[in-house]
């Protein structure tokens, strides 16, 4: 359980077990227990980050686990635009040209893929999971691809 996602997955499995048990309300109690602790540790992290200042917080992000915990609590020193742009740069060698069109107030992240290497569903989900990893606050990730080029042929004549 070395990532917040793995811990979250385990927590959800255990809560589901309670919900299927004799009293489904125990699942809500468990939910509240987890909320209590996550918020306590989140508040602790917030104070640590505040003390360290932006530079110190950026250094903390060298550790992937710490970085993902800062993301859980909205404490990452870089904003979503910067985080997503960097993630797209890392993806380029695998998926080709990618641009961040914008992040809506509705939490939808809009991207444009040049589509030079196609944009199948596997590639889409690769892009989406990369964006979600660095921007868990994203509600949805939309990848725009250009329409296929029309083949213009001249009529003989």
């Amino acid at each position, binding site marked *: 359980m070395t990532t*917040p*996602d793995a*811990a*979250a*997955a385990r*927590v959800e499995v255990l809560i589901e077990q309670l*919900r299927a048990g004799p*009293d*489904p*309300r125990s*699942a*809500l109690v468990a*939910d*509240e227990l*987890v*909320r209590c602790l*996550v*918020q306590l540790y*989140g508040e602790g992290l917030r104070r640590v980050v505040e003390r360290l200042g932006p530079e110190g917080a950026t250094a903390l992000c060298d550790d992937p686990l710490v970085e993902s915990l800062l993301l*859980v*609590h*909205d404490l990452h020193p870089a904003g979503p635009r910067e985080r997503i742009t960097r993630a797209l740069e890392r993806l380029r060698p695998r998926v080709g040209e990618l641009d961040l069109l914008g992040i809506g107030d509705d*939490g939808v992240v809009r991207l444009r893929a040049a589509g030079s290497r196609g944009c199948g569903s596997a590639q889409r989900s690769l892009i989406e999971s990369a964006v*979600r990893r660095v921007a*868990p*606050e*994203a*509600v949805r990730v939309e990848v725009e691809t250009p329409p296929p080029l029309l083949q213009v042929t001249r009529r003989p004549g």
Partner: protein
Amino acid sequence: MSGPGLRRFTVAPVPRCELCATVIGEEHRHVLALADRSLLCACHPCHLLFQAPGAGRFRAVPDRYLALGPADGEALGVPVTPAFVVAHGEGERLVASCPSPAGTTECEVDGAAWDRLAAANPLLREPVADVEAIYLTGREAFLVPVDACYALAGAVRSRWQGGDGGPAVRHLLDAFLHDLRSRV
């Protein structure tokens, strides 16, 4: 903003169905847990699931309101009006709950007195056991869902002052009756 994984624990919980965890709105239905007569918030499909009689440990709370006509609460020996009368189980005991600093105070209703009252007004036999109550104002009776009774009891408990509840509780009870009249 919430999101996947542990992020959902960093924000206040959204209302969820207590049976299946589906997110539900602030306005939602309830089911009654027969074991301890507590209410659980329910989504529409779960509520439907427990509408069938004898559907196990939970029973869906209906949302009908009816005016049942005249009923003399005092003839029942219920010490205070208003009071809610709920049948605990089919054909079993009748329990009256009266507003009190504890939310409600319960007392058992004399079966023979109830039978006399119901003979004069057969509509009093209308409520579904456990999930529908009769609200007795002293002179009139209304059929109300038990979740409305629980909500009123909670409001009474939080505003009770002094020996008789004070003006805030009187106002609550007046508003409740006014709301009842607009629904039937």
